[in-house]
């Protein structure tokens, strides 16, 4: 029962635009910070390579804080969906186990709320590939790829 509901949970959320919008926002933010000197996340990079592991870690940490807001949206939905849709009476009169219900919702929301943060890596990856091609960042302040 747990696995059926867990996958249903994911499927339902992946059909909604919310998760893709968050993913896009995070991707665009890190993309911009990678390719432009005017956008910085967590202080300017200075003499460090723009896609250095240190920078990636900083981006991840800073955006994780915003990730909390994203997580709120998913967990709010997971916890209140039955009540806000007025479905709770039918649901709780079925022989549903507390453990299955709670953890299927919890792990579902946990996994879903991490997906938008993947945008950090997508943004940096795309940014680091495109910036040299379009010459967005001059070589002497060092967009040198960390390979």
């Amino acid at each position, binding site marked *: *029962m747990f696995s*059926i*509901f867990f996958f*249903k949970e994911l499927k*339902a959320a992946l*059909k909604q635009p919310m998760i893709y919008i968050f993913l896009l926002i995070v991707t665009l933010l890190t993309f911009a910070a990678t390719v432009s000197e005017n956008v910085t996340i967590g202080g300017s990079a200075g003499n460090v390579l723009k896609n250095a592991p240190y920078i990636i870690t900083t981006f991840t940490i800073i955006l994780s804080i915003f990730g909390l807001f994203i997580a709120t949206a998913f967990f709010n939905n997971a916890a209140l*969906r039955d009540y806000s*849709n*007025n*479905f709770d*009476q*039918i*649901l*709780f*009169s*079925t*022989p*549903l*186990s507390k453990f299955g219900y709670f953890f299927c919702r919890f792990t579902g929301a946990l996994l879903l709320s991490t997906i938008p943060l993947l945008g950090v890596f997508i943004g940096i990856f795309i940014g680091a590939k495109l910036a040299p091609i379009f010459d967005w960042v001059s070589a002497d302040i060092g967009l040198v790829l960390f390979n």
Partner: protein
Amino acid sequence: MHKLTINNLTKTYPNGVKALDNISIEITNGMFGLLGPNGAGKSSLMRTLATLQEADSGTATLNDIDIFKQPNELRKVLGYLPQEFGVYPRITAEQLLDHLAILKGVTNTKERKELVNYLLDKVNLYEKRNKSVKGFSGGMKQRVGIAQALIGNPKLIIVDEPTAGLDPGERNRFYNLLAEVGQEVIVILSTHIVDDVRELCTKMAIMNLGNIVYQGTPQNAIDDLNGKIYQKMVPREALQNYADNYAVISNKMVGGQPLIHIYSDVHPNEGFEPIAPNLEDVFFSKINIKNVLV
């Protein structure tokens, strides 16, 4: 033969409202009508039996399942249609029933698909199975509700004011369906519509202010009042006067003039004419014991 026994059930809400006051009923197979005015405690009783809330004291057992001690055992054999319910947005009738079938323990995919199709067919929604339930009309939504209550061969079906907002045609279809399944199991139907009970139920109880004020068959209740109900058209100004002098159980407008029904052991004359009592008279005579004008 299934048997639901309720003993001395009491529930007082935190705001001081005594919703259930020492209720004891015994219900066996068939349709059982629970009649009562709004706020009588019908929904509280239903919700308690559906394990959605707990009582302060008292016991309730279905066969040998103790409803309060083994709620999960009861839920396996329970079909519950709440007074009001909503569904998740964008879910279709088929998905909804499938979802609930898993919850009720039908885990075999093939078996579940057959069950869902059977139920959709039974409530006449097979053609609409891929449409969103949110967009259904009141009657169609209610039929989805009864379909979900029938999942998993329930022994106890509780339907709480199921026909509120249905047109007469939908109401009849709904009751035909319920009567069909109600042969073998216990169906508890709560309503404030007197006609529903008369048409459908073999047994009934009348509830008022958290108490059971009558319990038995509808026919017995009517027979008890035989020859004791009189009616008269009265002028509106004289209404209070009649209320002071007679046991007025109901007054309603007929063609713009009040028609009163009174309860009396002897013929009151004064232009009153005896009538054959109906269930509505029973209802009013049981809940309107102080004989005030309503």
